């Protein structure tokens, strides 16, 4: 069943996205048939371990992969436009104005030789025909919006002169400079301390609500996802193995992998002095994926049929789907 069949107004719809990198000896299939829909004003979190394909999916929306070494198939439609078939010129306009992105490490994402203010002014003037003074006034507004203290002075600061949390705020304001509808956030709080992380998460939630933004939020931290997202999609070995509203997914996880993630140490789901429940082994080799369910080798509930073919998506409830053949048996 397609994701689109039960959707109303999609801002983003990703259908059967596959991304293969042809770098080493063997091609690596990083994303393997992702379907995802996002309504206007909605926040979805993609969670998963490293190598699960969550960042690659996110970058595909802006087509940020090196074209010569990447094979992409499927469809990505954002606000009625197909990203896959965009001309380079249209793509350049599209990046920033409709969709913009914030990254894990602002120090690498910001240009070290320009002040933060100049970078924001440049971004505004790239997408709107305004004079420098107007752009500067808007940059100041943006700094106030993301609550940077003494914003006027900070506009003249270089990235290295700011603290980690402040830089992340500056990058968020840069991403918002050209009034995008969709914000892509790639682990924006992973490099931050806990006390700063929660500030940035709350800021994102507030901006999303006030500006009516749609957000795709990539993280490996379920806690952070629960703080900001309306829906959560769990990725494993290039596929979405489960996706649903936050409450349903946290309270009634359907896929064994989601259940394992939730019972791990990160959520206080442990008894002191006892051993943690673990998922044995490690994620599969993406250049040599197994024939059936890619989680089968680590799954406590696996049966021979799991290894025969890739499980289809099953709807557990409204808006809540999972890829596991054992779900129907259970219900």
């Amino acid at each position: 069943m397609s994701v689109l069949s039960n959707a109303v107004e999609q801002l983003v719809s990703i259908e059967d996205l596959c991304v293969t990198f042809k770098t080493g000896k063997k091609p690596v299939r990083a994303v393997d048939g992702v379907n995802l829909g996002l309504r206007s004003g909605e926040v979805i979190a993609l969670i998963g371990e490293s190598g699960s394909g969550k960042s690659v999916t996110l970058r595909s929306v802006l087509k940020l992969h090196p074209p010569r070494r990447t094979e992409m198939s499927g469809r990505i439609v954002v606000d009625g436009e197909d990203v896959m078939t965009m001309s380079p010129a249209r793509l350049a306009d599209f990046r920033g104005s409709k969709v913009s992105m914030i990254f894990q490490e602002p120090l690498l994402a910001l240009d070290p030789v320009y002040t933060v203010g100049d970078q924001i002014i440049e971004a505004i003037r790239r997408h709107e025909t305004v004079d420098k003074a107007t752009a500067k006034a808007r940059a100041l507004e943006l700094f106030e919006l993301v609550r940077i203290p003494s914003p006027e002075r900070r506009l003249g600061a270089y990235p290295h002169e700011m603290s980690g949390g402040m830089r992340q705020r500056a990058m968020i304001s840069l991403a918002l400079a050209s009034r995008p509808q969709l914000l892509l956030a790639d682990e924006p709080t992973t490099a931050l301390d806990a006390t700063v992380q929660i500030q940035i998460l709350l800021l994102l939630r507030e901006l999303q609500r006030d500006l009516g933004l749609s957000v795709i939020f990539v993280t490996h931290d379920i806690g952070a996802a629960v703080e900001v997202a309306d829906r959560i999609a769990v990725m494993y070995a290039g596929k979405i193995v489960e996706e649903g509203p936050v409450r349903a997914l946290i309270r009634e996880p359907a896929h064994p992998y989601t259940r394992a993630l939730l019972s791990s140490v990160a959520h206080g789901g442990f008894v002191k002095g006892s051993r943690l429940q673990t998922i044995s082994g490690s994620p599969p080799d993406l250049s040599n994926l197994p024939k059936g369910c890619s989680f089968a080798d680590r799954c406590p509930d696996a049966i021979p049929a799991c290894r025969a073919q890739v499980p289809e998506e099953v709807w557990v409830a409204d808006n809540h789907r999972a890829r596991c053949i054992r779900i129907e048996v259970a219900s």
Partner: protein
Amino acid sequence: MASDDQTIDLGGPAQPLLKVTNLTKHFPLGKDLLGRSSGVVRAVDGVSFDVFKGETLSVVGESGCGKSTTARLLMNLLERDKGEIIFDGAQVDSTDLRLKDFRRQAQMVFQDSYASLNPRLTIEDSIAFAPQVHGVEKRQAIERARSLLQKVGLEPRRFAERYPHELSGGQRQRVNIARALALQPRLIVLDEAVSALDKSVEAQVLNLLLDLKEEFDLTYVFISHDLNVVRFISDRVMVMYLGQVVEIGESEALFESPRHPYTQALLSSIPSLDPDDRTNKPPLSGDPPNPINPPSGCRFHTRCKMAQPACASQVPSLVEHSDGQSVACLMYEPDSAYEHSQAIEEVTS
């Protein structure tokens, strides 16, 4: 084996394995054009604590609070400016306990599993290296390396002759743990040892650490920024802020009823994982201040909700409460200038 008979408990179980007093490390900043020193980073500033035999003491705090510097000072990888480190009754790096003998008994595991292994040595050679330095014969050292690999869950026949780049992050961290065990140490300092691992792999390594602790009677100093992991593994927890200890106590007591306003804020920064109980207000605003010019008085007063004028001038000292929790905050200091009104009820309720 020469190294075996050295592992003896000298002072009995009641004597702390490690007694640290007034540990201090200031890193000088560069000099300016005229050759004047432009100040110091007060990375660790008068830290005192004990590590008891057989316990896991965790050190938590934001980046820049000095937790990793403390770890390196404990291991004598950095030279301390001031302070004393006593290992089971003997002063480290003195005639009582030579540095080489201390290092045999205290080992460290680092965060970056790849950078801490020699890329040109097979993993069995890496593990067998230190015992050979300490006088164990090569054949014997390799034999022991293989049995340690078995212990950390890496089949020696499959893994012993591999190189670090052929292993995954979790497997490499297992090798680092095996290497730390090779000298049969009594203390292992784990500096963010599981932070770089994926959650499912992290759980496996944490279980391994617990198993090894039981089997070899180890004592851990566990440094981490992940408070859930800390709660799981520790017996006691030490909270640091800008180079100083603000609170130290039994792990469960500290997580259940933190006393210091900073500990309270730190613990309530953990995302709740309940969609109906989201955090609405960040417990702290701003980033931690710069340790080059730390605030006067109590270093936390600039971000503290409970701060009063007295906090900016008076330096709080670490006061032990009847339940063993120690806190450095004027609110809890009997003779401080802090004015109590309802402040304390608010915090403790």
